[in-house]
Each structure stands twice: as structure tokens, then as C-alpha cells.
């Protein structure tokens, strides 16, 4: 089963829409609540990253019998140093974004902690791609 979502950069009030939709579908498929919660956290953080940093992004969700695979490709500034971006507490978010309680440098570590596989790649000046897998 495949689902597609468009994420608009800067659209904070829309952040979480894709995560909620995916969560609803996973519930209908009777996936364990603990696994659904992990996926919801990872997806929300990934969505917020696009909203807070990129111009726009496309999310593709593939649900198979034994796992969920999510790929988000964004157009945006990209990440210069991925290792640094993965460090807990590191953030390049604007003051405005931080005032809302985002940009604490916990998003990417939260994604890593809640997924079985996470691949992050980026071309600075072009965009970032994140691929995650959670096994059921």
C-alpha cells in the first residue's frame, strides 16, 4: 500500500497531517500500538524538519506486511554536515521556530531512536532525503 503527501515549507499549522493520516491507516491494519507510536514520532519529526527548514517536500509511505518504509525528499538548503546535524542539541532553526518549541536539536535523534533503519543524505543548496524503515 502506498501513500503520498506534499509538505509545504513554513506551513506549521499543517505539520502533523501526514503523520495522523498514516497513524489512522496503521490502526486499521491492527499494527501494535507501541510500533504505531514509534512511527508517529519519527514521521512527525520528519514532517516538522521539512516545514522548519525546506521549501517543500514529498513524502512517500510504503506499507508492507512486515514493515513500513518512508521516504521524504525535500527541496531546500540541505545539510552541510550530517554527523553534526545528528548530534542531540544541534540545530540551525531560526529564533521564530525555536520560540514555538521546535529547533531543540532533538528531531533527528528522535527519528533515529524510533526507527529500525534511517538513512539521511543531502546535497547542500539542493535538498535533503531521509529514508526510514520500521519493522512490524
Amino acid at each position, binding site marked *: 500500500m502506498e501513500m503520498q503527501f506534499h509538505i509545504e515549507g513554513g506551513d506549521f499549522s499543517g505539520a502533523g497531517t501526514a503523520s495522523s493520516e498514516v497513524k489512522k491507516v496503521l490502526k486499521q491494519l491492527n499494527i501494535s500500538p507501541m510500533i504505531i507510536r514509534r512511527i508517529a*514520532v519519527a514521521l512527525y519529526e520528519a514532517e516538522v524538519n521539512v516545514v522548519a527548514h525546506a521549501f517543500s517536500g514529498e513524502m512517500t509511505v510504503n506499507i508492507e506486511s512486515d514493515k513500513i518504509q518512508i521516504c521524504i525528499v525535500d527541496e531546500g538548503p540541505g545539510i552541510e554536515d550530517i554527523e553534526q546535524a545528528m548530534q542531540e542539541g544541534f540545530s540551525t532553526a531560526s529564533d521564530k521556530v525555536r520560540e514555538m*518549541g521546535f529547533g531543540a536539536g532533538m528531531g533527528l535523534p528522535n527519528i533515529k531512536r524510533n526507527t529500525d533503519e534511517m538513512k539521511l543524505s543531502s546535497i547542500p543548496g539542493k535538498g535533503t532525503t531521509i529514508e526510514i524503515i520500521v519493522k512490524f
Partner: protein
Amino acid sequence: MLIKMETLTLKQLVDDLGFVALTDETRLNRTPESAYVSDLLSDVMGKAKENMIWVTSQAHKNIVAVASLKELSAIVVVNERKVSQDVIEQAEKENVNIIASERAAFETVGLLFDYLNS
């Protein structure tokens, strides 16, 4: 012998502590399990547990998505922070309870701590 304990509801907690429900009161039937205090959304996403009450001074729309995805029992917005109508409407739509406390975070959390541990 089994002693049947009366389960605490959010409604009871709101009445006892003098908080105000901003969303539909009839939905305050959930049982809160402990609480989590933070104004950082990713902190809540990472560490809060299902059915917890989330105490925060953030009052924008994104708190609804966080509470809904994490299945928190309620958000307690502290310090008389204004919660706008569109946030309340969003919460109603997603079955999220928003409660207002006129006290600052420290006092609110102190009250909750004593109440939930008694």
C-alpha cells in the same frame, strides 16, 4: 479481597484543582497517568508517555498534533496563556483535551504532583 478503587477522571482533576476546560467538558473522561512538563515539542515527542498530562506554556496549533500523536490525556496550558479559537477547534476535531491553569508552571506542576501522587 479486591478493593475497587474509583478511577480518577480528568473532569474530577479539573474541578478539584480549579483548572478550566477549554475543550468539550464531556470528553474529560480519560484517566490521567502522571504528567510531563516541557515547552520543547520534540522533548514531548521523545519522552512523554501515553495518557500523561502535558503541562506547557506553548499555546499554538502544533501542541494539538503532538498531544494527538502521543495520545496524551490532556494539555494543561499554564499562566493564563491565551489559547486561540482555531487551536481549540483543532483540538475538538482531534479529540484532544485542552485545560487552562491560571497559575504559573511551577505552581501548576506542584499541584498536579501532589494530586496525582495522593
